[in-house]
């Protein structure tokens, strides 16, 4: 079988073996959870409950009203303790609903499935997905309902199910593919119906051969194509994945819709199936808890809103010398400073290890490794210099906004320059400048 | 209107407004003829002659010159003195004239001279203009001498033609070639900037 891939990129150590063969364990919900009202790309949801309210599992507690927004649901049954600002994994403080778990796990009675999900119209599917508050579970947390609504002038012909999980350490998607292949394939079929696409391609990296075999077996009934991809980072990045599988290039600043493609992560696909077939909103997800700072690395099904502390305790706790806690993968994940921080929909992993405190930063020796590895074909070292000297116009000309912050450049930089950090700074400066000019 | 004392007016050309190190004017002769001190001195004197007499003439007839044609008038005046200097050197110092080559006629376009006319002589009295011209000329000669001393010592091992380096010394030919001029000037400019920064910090 021919292995497909994209040009450039890196191959960091995979270190997936710790949790590779560990089945997903269900973690009992903790006594108290905090559910932030912003867990997606877009505007925060409006709170629907107040202190003292009784809530059920799956009850909507935040309504996403804006276009780029998603509803938030309670992940336990119990009493609302407060709606207040709380630490959010992305750094800033965000309005969150704190719920005391009554331990009963009463499901919201009004939740109901559909007998024949495949007979639903695209609009009905989108409605259900929106109701369930589903967002992209790969990490970017883009509201899925939006992703299922291709514009009229951009017909979609292919649905890509992203089973790459190219980030090192993470195995949550892999376990999901092993344990729920049918749900994923059915979810893919729903996505295909919703977008009016013709074909489905499931892309799996060749370090996950077992998952690939299972999918090949199961996909026979579903007429979905299963493609093997080279193990390479960032194989799972949307634009690179589309290029690897279809040799189509998403234009700069464009969306997959522009080339007739919709990409869904396997976790999201399963959530879509659960929402459409059972009416179950997104209130729990599978995450990988790993890294050599975790006593018992595991793949865990956790309720959204569970504080990191509880998850780590469930996995045997932290080792003594740990000094870095990362939500997400080691390449794109966000460093965390508090164990109070809750798990959100976009959390794909919780990693902890001992990291060197700092590196000596040499000056750029123009070795060109960042250029060699940038999957987007940018010149990160030059972008860094532009941002450093505040030359934002040139930075934009050189495509700073096309950067997906995958970290390949910084990973490979021998001078240990914080390239992604500088690029992020530049992007933020440009975007805030644009806002100011618009206002 | 004048805010500087006579002394200040004269001394500014040596350091504060030194044409070579501070204003970076007259780079063409500075780089081209400073491979030996005798050439540097001759070029400096020729420039001084032109500068002083042009300043004298320009400042004395400044009221007569309409501003629209002032540059043309200055150039005619400067060119006159340059030609005199050139002919004089060719007649009485033929070896120096040969060494300086086209750079004597090129004094016409030396920014120091036109710059002083435009910036100073056309606005100041004859006396002040002369003082300014003398100061600037001496500053320029000083700069040329420093540059050519370094280049001559390293490039020929001599100082004004006298052997100063021992037999062991192998002349650095690069110093009497154009790259040597650029390297030396660059280093001197960096030093000048450094000194300026230090004195500013002390103030």
């Amino acid at each position, binding site marked *: 079988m021919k292995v497909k891939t994209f040009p450039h990129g890196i191959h960091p150590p995979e270190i997936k073996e710790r949790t590779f063969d560990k089945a997903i364990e269900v973690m009992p919900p903790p006594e108290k959870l905090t559910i932030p009202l912003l867990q997606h790309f877009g505007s925060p949801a409006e709170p629907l409950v107040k202190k003292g309210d009784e809530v059920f599992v799956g009850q909507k507690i935040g309504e996403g009203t804006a276009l780029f927004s998603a509803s938030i649901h309670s992940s336990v049954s119990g009493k609302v303790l407060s709606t207040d600002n709380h630490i959010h994994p992305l750094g800033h403080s965000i309005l969150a609903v704190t719920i005391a778990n009554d331990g009963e796990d009463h499901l919201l009675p009004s939740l109901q499935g559909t007998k024949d999900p495949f007979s639903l119209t695209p609009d009905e599917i989108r409605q259900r997905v929106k109701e369930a508050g589903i967002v992209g579970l790969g990490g970017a947390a883009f509201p899925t309902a939006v992703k299922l609504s291709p514009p009229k002038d951009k017909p979609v012909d292919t649905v890509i199910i992203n089973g790459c999980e190219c980030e090192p350490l993470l195995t949550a998607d892999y376990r999901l593919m092993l344990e729920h292949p049918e749900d994923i394939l059915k979810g893919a079929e729903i996505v295909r119906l919703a977008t009016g696409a013709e074909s489905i391609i499931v892309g799996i990296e060749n370090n996950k051969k077992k998952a690939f075999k299972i999918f090949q077996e199961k996909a026979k009934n579903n007429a979905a194509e299963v493609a093997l991809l080279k193990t390479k980072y960032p194989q799972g990045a949307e634009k690179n994945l589309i290029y690897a599988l279809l040799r189509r290039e998403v234009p700069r600043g464009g969306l997959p819709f522009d080339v007739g493609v919709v990409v869904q992560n396997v976790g999201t696909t399963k959530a879509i199936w659960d929402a459409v077939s059972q009416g179950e909103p997104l209130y729990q997800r599978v995450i990988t808890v790993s890294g050599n700072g975790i006593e018992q690395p595991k793949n865990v099904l956790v309720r959204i809103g569970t504080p990191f502390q509880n998850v780590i305790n469930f996995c045997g706790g932290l080792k003594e010398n740990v000094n*870095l806690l990362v939500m997400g993968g080691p*390449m794109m994940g966000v460093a965390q400073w508090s164990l109070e921080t809750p798990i959100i929909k976009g959390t794909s992993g919780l990693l902890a290890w001992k990291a060197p405190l700092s590196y000596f930063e040499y000056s750029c020796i123009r070795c060109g490794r960042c250029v060699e590895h940038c999957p*987007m*074909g940018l010149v990160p070292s030059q972008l860094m210099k532009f941002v450093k000297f505040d030359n934002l116009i040139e930075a934009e000309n050189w*495509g700073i906004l096309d950067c997906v912050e995958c970290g390949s450049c910084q990973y490979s930089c021998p001078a240990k320059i914080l390239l992604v950090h500088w690029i992020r700074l530049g992007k933020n400066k440009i975007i805030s400048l644009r806002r100011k000019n618009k206002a | 209107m004048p805010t500087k004392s006579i002394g200040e007016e004269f001394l500014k050309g040596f350091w504060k407004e030194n044409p070579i190190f501070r204003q970076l004017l007259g780079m063409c002769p500075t780089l081209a003829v400073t491979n030996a001190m005798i050439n540097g001195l001759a070029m400096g004197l020729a420039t001084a002659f032109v500068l002083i007499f042009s300043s004298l003439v320009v400042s004395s007839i400044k009221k007569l010159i309409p501003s629209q044609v002032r540059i043309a008038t200055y150039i005619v005046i400067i060119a006159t003195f340059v030609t005199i200097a050139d002919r004089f050197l060719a007649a009485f110092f033929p070896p120096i004239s040969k060494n300086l080559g086209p750079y004597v006629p090129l004094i016409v376009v030396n920014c120091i001279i036109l710059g002083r006319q435009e910036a100073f002589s056309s606005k100041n009295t004859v006396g002040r203009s002369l003082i300014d011209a003398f100061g600037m000329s001496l500053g320029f000669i000083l700069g040329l001498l420093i540059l050519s001393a370094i280049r001559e010592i390293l490039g020929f091992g001599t100082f004004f033609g006298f052997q100063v380096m021992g037999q062991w010394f192998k002349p650095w030919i690069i110093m009497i070639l154009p790259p040597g001029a650029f390297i030396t000037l660059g280093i001197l400019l960096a030093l000048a900037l450094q000194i300026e920064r230090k004195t500013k910090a002390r103030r």
Partner: protein
Amino acid sequence: MTNKTFILQSSPHFKDKDSVPKIMYAVIFSLMPAAFASIYFFRLKAVVMLFSCVVVSLATEAIFLWLRKKPFHSLLDGSSVITGLILAMTLPPSLSLELAVIGAAAAIAIGKQVFGGLGHNIFNPALVGRAFLQTSFPVAMTTWIPPVTAKINTATYATPLANLKFEEAVAQGTLTPLKDLFWGNIGGCLGEASAITLLIGALYLLFRRVIDWRIPVGIMVSLSAFTGVFWLISPEKYASPLFHILSGGLMIGAFFMATDMVTSPISPLGSWIYALGIGLIVGLIRLFGGFPEGVMYSILFMNAFVPLLNRYARPQILGERSKR
């Protein structure tokens, strides 16, 4: 487990093991076979030259770091050792020591530190040092002695290229045999003595992916193409492309000097243009120029174009490569 403190850092949280010093030391390591070959061919003189150039480079670097009040880290990164080593290997073995010392000091001072130190220089520092010496002491820089191992008893000795240029060696049939060029035992700079030892070091660098394979390949392709055309037209007048590749400083230039990361382009297309340009200019100088050898000036010349190449030959951004 209470109140654990964590560090905050921006992603990515993984780092490749390679670092600037590691790259630099790989280059130093790869120069060792050629350095030992030069010691074999020129004995004590080579040892003294290599050693003093390295020491003076380090000392000059240290002085400048101290003057500029910069951390002394960059003294240990190995880059000045490389500069000293490469400079020494491009010097004639007969050169007197004080001139080598001046060259090493000039290489670091005006080749590297005046631009702002490692990563900021435009021109390859070792070559700047060599150009400084070449212009300052042209006679000393073009006086060659035969290697100790070659049993020739003459005070002066022409390099294979000088032989080719000034003695009409092709017509006379006195061209240095390719075998000698390849294995060594010829006159020339310390590092030019033996092609095979340079090749061994270069293969290690290519294998370690420290140098860009496009640059040596591009240089050799364009030099072969250029000299090959003339060779095919009149083989009785011009030397073969293989002679040109193996002789003089081409090997050391193509593998160790043109590939200097700081002064070579960062994009693949840029590297190709840069390399083809170097090969072409080397050919032009060797066949039609006033000097027998042109590797140094052609690399310095193309170095000057690197900022332009970095700007105009940058890779295409994904989404621009093809239009659907």
